[in-house]
């Protein structure tokens, strides 16, 4: 699950994507895209949905009511002017509609006792701006609901990007190389599942809290990795997923400032993203960590990564968690001004801690690479040979690729060549295949 420093090519974010005016909320009315109203709506949307969901206890209905508030704004604002506090206006409008709906709909009668309490709780807020703390609580409930383990990872990702990331169904489909109908269905089904399983709209406390938080962090991490794995020529929306994930992680860190692993995830993503511009060459070919132009790593993101890592350390009560450990490894790379200055023995130690904490053959392979840099190819080959029988790595091209590299360094050239050819056969894309074939043929 660790992002590979030598992972496949990603398009450089150069030139920066031009702001597109197509990112409109899905509207049934034929409204003009790119208007200030729609921008405001897109910015406020997660909080609107969260605030309304607390009243109606259903994220699908909450999303519809938020859209209704937008329709009202599109009718009224051009005529009466934009209100002083557009976010509060939308929130009040959406909540009024939510309360009307709750009062009107018979199927909520069964829940009247519970709803009655909600209405009382919501009452005082209706004609004044919501307390920021309440909004934060609602937003956090929405995060945990969208990432609920009753949903598949795919459904959690789509719903999170839709409700919290502000992406349209079209954008999600393009970013994940999936048909739009598939994504739309996935989101509809996810909302239905949440309703059918009566998933409570709440922040979990108690014994399952850690598992629930792990599910949220994993969703953000998977979104980031999807962007990280994008290849040159892919739609720019794919690499942009890295930034969507980073924004979600930053928001979560503000909502859960006491959670070390949230800061660990932010640190990891900030540090990974700091290298984005240097991971691919002029024609989209992957550039290995050792060949990247470190002067072009983004200093601001590196500084933010270190700050977040500091918070992860400061808030930790026990041993560092997997995200904080991965961030610490990324920090070692960020700290080295040249590849030669990399503190490989520290990285090997951190990988050992990570393997102990959450065993994974891929992480063990990464540890082998670090050990080979710190202590030489011999000890590393022992680790890699232990992994040879690992079923999870059977088709993983980086295993023979790493092994080939170690054998070559040990002077066992014929064996090395065979490993590189095997790796080329398993490679996931043409660029990696070409790189491995070239390695098979090169001398020492």
């Amino acid at each position, binding site marked *: 699950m660790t992002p590979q420093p030598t992972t496949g090519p990603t398009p*450089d*974010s*150069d*030139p*920066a*994507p031009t*702001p*597109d*005016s197509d*990112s409109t909320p899905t509207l049934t009315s034929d409204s003009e895209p*790119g208007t*200030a109203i729609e*921008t*405001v709506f*897109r*910015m406020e949307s997660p909080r609107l949905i969260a605030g309304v969901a607390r009243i109606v206890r259903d994220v699908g209905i909450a999303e519809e009511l938020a859209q209704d508030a937008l329709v009202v704004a599109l009718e009224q604002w051009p005529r009466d002017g934009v209100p*002083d506090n557009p976010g509060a206006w939308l929130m009040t409008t959406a909540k009024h509609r939510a309360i009307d709906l709750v009062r009107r709909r018979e199927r909520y009668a069964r829940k009247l006792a519970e709803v009655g309490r909600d209405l009382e709780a919501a009452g005082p807020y209706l004609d004044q701006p919501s307390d*920021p703390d309440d909004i*934060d609580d609602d937003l956090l409930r929405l995060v945990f609901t969208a990432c609920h383990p009753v949903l598949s990872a795919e459904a959690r990702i789509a719903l999170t990007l839709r409700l919290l990331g*502000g992406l349209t169904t079209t954008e999600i489909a393009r970013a994940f190389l999936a048909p739009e109908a598939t994504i739309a269905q996935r989101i509809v089904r996810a909302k239905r599942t949440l309703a059918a399983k009566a998933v409570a709209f709440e922040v979990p406390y108690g014994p399952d809290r850690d598992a629930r938080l792990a599910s949220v962090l994993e969703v953000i991490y998977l979104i980031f990795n999807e962007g990280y794995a994008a290849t040159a020529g892919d739609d720019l929306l794919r690499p*942009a997923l890295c*930034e*969507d994930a*980073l*924004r*979600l*992680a*930053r*928001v979560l860190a*503000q*909502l859960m400032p006491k959670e070390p692993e949230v800061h660990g995830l932010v640190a990891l993503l900030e540090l990974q993203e700091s290298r984005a*511009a240097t991971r691919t060459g002029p024609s989209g070919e992957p550039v290995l960590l050792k060949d990247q132009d470190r002067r*072009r790593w983004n200093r*601001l993101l590196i500084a*933010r990564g270190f700050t977040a890592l500091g918070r992860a350390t400061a808030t930790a009560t026990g041993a560092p968690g997997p995200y904080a450990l991965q961030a610490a490894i990324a920090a070692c790379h960020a700290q080295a001004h040249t590849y030669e200055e990399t503190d490989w023995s520290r990285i090997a130690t951190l990988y050992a801690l990570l393997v102990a904490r959450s065993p994974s053959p891929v992480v063990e392979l990464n540890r082998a690479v670090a050990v080979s840099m710190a202590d030489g190819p011999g000890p590393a080959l022992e680790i890699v040979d232990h992994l040879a029988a690992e079923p999870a790595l059977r088709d993983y091209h980086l295993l023979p690729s790493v092994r080939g590299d170690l054998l070559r360094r040990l002077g066992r050239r014929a064996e090395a060549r065979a490993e590189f050819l095997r790796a080329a056969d398993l490679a996931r894309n043409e660029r990696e295949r070409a790189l491995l074939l070239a390695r098979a043929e090169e001398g020492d």
Partner: protein
Amino acid sequence: MPRYLSMVRIDEKTAPAEGPSPELMQRMGDLLEEITKAGVMLDTAGLLPTAQGKRVRWEGGELSVTDGPFTETKEVVGGYALMQCKDMAEAVEWAKRFLKVHEEHWTVTCEVREITEG
């Protein structure tokens, strides 16, 4: 998601001498917290007056250093915000909200510029 630099320009001659009111500072603090919570704000700061600044210039192969204040420039940069937004429209909306926390006697310009990546 591009990054934007919002350069906050003020006219030092007409800016209130007593500086921002406590109420403005309070509203500003609340707004900055909101922008940070939205995952948008990457960095922000205010600058000391240009009277304490210097301009270092390279022209015709010669270096020159000029002490502030820079009276020949009507509006000078008094602060900045570095934000990550979906698009320019979102960056402009945040700039509008930043401007609206000021009282009416302020004249402030946010120059919002996209940062080149890569």
